């Protein structure tokens, strides 16, 4: 922005603006990212929050309805049950995926380009005879998994979405997320060509789900393609009504 009427602002000012909730859009996302990654900036935000918190005493206190606590308690009980259930069968659900994921994490962790190329070569199996540097770039790219992280507000929680081209499988990990008992969250692909959003289904809190993608969706996947998460009634967006509010967004990038 080169708005001439704007006065210069330092990080402290951006921290205040963020803390007050004045920012929107890209500026908000940038500031949010900095809170997560920049301890000095996060401390500045926290300092302002602490300074201004006494102002919240001026807000009129209000009694919530009496049955809200039982609802909260029930939601927490349900989550506890879901967590222990997830611990029991998560192993069988994700066991097939874990060895693959481990390999990609390893891939992602490699910083040497040479090592990355060598590993990609190995991934084509012992039958591949080309020298690593002769592998066509497009072939490499199309075989590489796509990953997306969809952060949920500034909760520190996020959805992890991984697409594995070779099996056409997509993994949606919502570990740490919990159901509130009144809403479901539906994940949508935002095709790069501007066509209609495609539903990737309702997210299952606390689990890693594996699904096979139909070709109509798979062909829209690619580096930079966006994902949005919407809040819907239980069961997902009802037929014939608009999708609910977007609660989180992310984009795919290639490992």
């Amino acid at each position, binding site marked *: 922005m080169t708005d001439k009427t704007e006065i210069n602002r330092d990080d402290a000012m951006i921290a205040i*603006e963020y803390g*007050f909730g*004045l920012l929107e859009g890209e500026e908000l996302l940038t500031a949010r990212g900095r809170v997560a990654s920049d301890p000095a900036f996060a401390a500045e935000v926290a300092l302002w929050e602490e300074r201004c918190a006494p*102002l*919240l005493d001026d807000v009129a206190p209000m*009694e919530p*309805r009496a049955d809200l606590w039982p609802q909260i308690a029930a939601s927490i009980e349900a989550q506890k049950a879901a967590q222990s259930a997830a611990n029991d069968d998560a192993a069988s659900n994700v066991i097939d995926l874990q060895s693959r994921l481990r390999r990609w994490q390893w891939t992602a962790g490699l910083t040497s380009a040479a090592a990355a190329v060598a590993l990609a070569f190995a991934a084509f199996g012992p039958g591949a005879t080309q020298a690593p540097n002769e592998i066509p770039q497009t072939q490499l790219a199309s075989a590489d998994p796509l990953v997306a992280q969809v952060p949920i*507000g500034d909760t520190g929680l996020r959805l992890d979405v991984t697409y594995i081209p070779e099996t056409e499988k997509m993994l949606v990990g919502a570990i740490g997320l919990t159901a509130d008992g009144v809403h479901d969250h539906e994940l949508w692909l935002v095709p790069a060509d501007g066509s209609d959003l495609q539903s990737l289904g309702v997210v299952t809190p606390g689990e890693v789900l594996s699904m096979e993608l139909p070709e109509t969706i798979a062909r829209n996947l690619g580096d930079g393609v966006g994902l949005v998460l919407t809040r819907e009634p239980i069961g997902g967006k009802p037929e014939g009504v608009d999708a609910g509010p*977007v609660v989180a967004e992310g984009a795919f990038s290639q490992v």
Partner: protein
Amino acid sequence: MVSGPTPASPEAREALRDAMVRLADGDSAALEQIYSATRVKLYGICFRILGDTKEAEDALQDVYVNLWQRADRYDPTRASPISWLATFARNRAIDRLRTGKVRGGAVPVEEAAPLPDAAPLADQMMIDGERAAHVHTCLESLEEPAQANIRSAFFDGMTYAELAENADVPLGTMKSWIRRGMMKLRTCLEAGE
């Protein structure tokens, strides 16, 4: 005055801090104690920001469920527990306000609910027991239009763009008003520390 700890008393604060520490240690029962001590204040904050009973109830539920999930985020050596909780509730409510509006107001406009009765002031846990915090006087010392707009940002969760629209001024003008006001606020606060 009745005997026993008042909501603003040091005893009440200590009890709350203790409950927060127990919650972080995995004692779910501590949450009910935290809820009963803070719900009136936090619900008031959620309602003020969201302006809608249903949304405020959802936000309040979200605040306590989140607190249960991530109680370890609270550092008892740093902030006062009620100050931290009030800020947490405000931030969650603002998040809800923003995400609901992403992509051109996907949230249906609900009919304005009648304003619920405010709870008696004595029931709420005070952040600033003595009302001695410098921020009150610093904010009051700001000139208009900065003061009113900074208040709207803080208490109603308005963004620069919304404030500019309400005041019918260009966005850049609103930003300048608020930033100048914020710089004065900062100077005033730092002078008092």
